[in-house]
C-alpha cells in the first residue's frame, strides 16, 4: 500500500509518476513484481478512491491518476484554482487551431485577457514559468522548440495529461455556448473530439488539487 501513498503524494502536485522512480523508491527489492503490484494499486484506487491509474507514456512508463467521478454541480464547497482557467484558455486556443500553435498566438491571447507573460501577474505570478514550465512538467502542455527559428520560437501542444483529463467535447460545447453556435459547426474539431478516448472528467486536476492545481468545475473564462 505504500505505492498508493506514493501516487497520492505525487498527484497532489500533479506530477507524473515514473516506473523507474516507483522501482527505486517504493518497490526496491520487489521490482520483479512490478506488474502485480501496479495491478493491485490500480484496483485499490478504483475501488476505494474512485481514481484510475493511466499510463500516459507507454514508452517511458509514466503514470498519472485521473478521476473516475465526474464533477458535480452543487457540491457543498467548491475549491477552485485560477490556474485552471488559464490552462483551459490555452488548451482551447491550441485545440481550435488544429492541435499545435506557435507560442506568439498563446501570448497574444493572454495579453487580450490582461495577462502579460513578461510581467508578474497579481493572481498567476510568473505567468511564463507557469505556462512553459509548471504546466509542462505536469503534462498539461507540451512546449517544444521550432528548429531553425531566429530568435528561437516554440510551439504549444496538448500534453499527455490534458489528453486524458480534459474532454474536447465539453470544451467544444462550452465554446459553442460562448459563440452561440452548435459544436458541430467546427467540423474538424468536432470529429477529433468525438474520437478522443473518453477522458476521466472534464475538469483538469480533479483527482486531487494541490498547491498549483486546477480545481474548478467550469472551463475557464475565455474573453473573446
Amino acid at each position, binding site marked *: 500500500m505504500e505505492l498508493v501513498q506514493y501516487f497520492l503524494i505525487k498527484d497532489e502536485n500533479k506530477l507524473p509518476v515514473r516506473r523507474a522512480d516507483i522501482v527505486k523508491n517504493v518497490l526496491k527489492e520487489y521490482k520483479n513484481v512490478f506488474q502485480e503490484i501496479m495491478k493491485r494499486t490500480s484496483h485499490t484506487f478504483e475501488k*476505494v478512491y474512485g481514481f484510475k491509474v493511466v499510463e500516459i507514456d507507454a514508452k517511458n512508463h509514466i503514470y498519472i491518476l485521473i478521476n473516475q467521478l465526474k464533477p458535480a454541480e452543487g*457540491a*457543498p*464547497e467548491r*475549491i477552485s484554482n485560477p490556474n485552471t482557467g488559464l490552462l483551459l484558455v490555452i488548451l482551447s486556443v491550441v485545440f481550435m487551431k488544429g492541435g499545435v500553435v506557435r507560442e506568439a498566438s498563446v501570448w497574444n491571447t493572454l495579453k487580450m485577457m490582461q495577462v502579460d507573460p513578461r510581467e508578474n501577474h497579481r493572481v498567476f505570478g510568473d505567468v511564463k514559468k507557469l505556462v512553459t514550465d509548471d504546466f509542462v512538467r505536469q503534462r498539461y502542455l507540451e512546449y517544444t522548440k521550432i528548429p531553425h527559428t531566429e530568435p528561437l520560437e516554440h510551439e504549444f501542444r496538448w500534453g499527455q495529461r490534458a489528453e486524458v483529463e480534459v474532454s474536447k467535447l465539453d470544451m467544444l460545447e462550452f465554446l459553442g455556448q460562448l459563440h452561440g453556435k452548435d459544436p458541430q459547426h467546427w467540423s474538424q474539431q468536432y470529429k477529433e473530439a468525438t474520437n478522443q478516448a473518453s477522458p476521466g472528467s472534464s475538469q483538469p486536476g480533479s483527482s*486531487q488539487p494541490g498547491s498549483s492545481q486546477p480545481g474548478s468545475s467550469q472551463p475557464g473564462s475565455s474573453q473573446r
Partner: protein
Amino acid sequence: MEDCHRRFLQNMMLRGIVNQQEAKALQQHCCEVHKQKYEADKLEEFIEVINSQLVSMYMKIRSGASEDDATQYYALVNTANTEITRMSPDYTASELELFKRTLDLIMHSDSGTASSTDILNSANSLQTRKLAKSAAEGMLHRLVKDGWMVEKRGEYSLSTRCIIDMEPYIRTTYEEEQLKLCSVCHGLAFKCQTCSNPLCTVKVHHPCAERFFRRMPVRKCPGCSEPWPHDIPEGRPSGSKQRQR
C-alpha cells in the same frame, strides 16, 4: 463501498477537516449525485463504510470535538505512524523538531498555548540544525496556514484538526502524568478550566464545563468538591456528542 462514498472521500482529501453540518451536507450531496438513498441520521455508518476500506491504507476519518465550542468535527488522518514525521513531506527535520518543542511547551502550559517568544527561543537550541528566527517565524506562519495551529495575539495553540490527528501520537509520546484530560469527556484538554485547589488536578473543557455545570445550582469540582471558581460560558442547546474516537 459505492461511488457516493468515493466522492465523499475525495472531498475529505481536499478539505482535510469538516464540521458536523458540512459532513452531513456532503453526505447528502454525494448520495444525491449518485442516486443513492440519503439517510440523514446514518452519517457515522456512512463514514464507517469508508473507514473499513481505508484501514489497510493507514488512513481514517476520525471525529473529535472542538475545544472552543464542542462542535463535532471529522478529519481525514494518517494512522500509519505515531511518529511526528507524519507531517514530513512538507516540513524539514529541524522544523519538525521545533514543532515537537512547541508541542512540549503547550503540553506543559496551563493555558494550552505557547507564546511566540518561547517558541522562537527554542529555535536557538535545536539538536538538528538551528533555525534562524525568520525561518522559525516562517514555519509558524506555514503551520497556521496549513491548519495545524491557531494563533491569537502571539499565542499558539493546536487546531482542532491537529488534536484529532495527533491524539494517538500525544497519548503514546507523553507520560500519563503529563497528559491533561478533561474530567467530563476524557479527551485531551488543552484549552480548559482548572480546579483552583492546588491539590486537585481536575480539568474541564469550557464547553464541557457549560454542559456539566449548567444544571447545578452550586458548582463544585467533580474531583475534590471545592467550589468551582470559573465563569461558565453561555449555554448552547446543542446535542453534539463529546465522545472522541
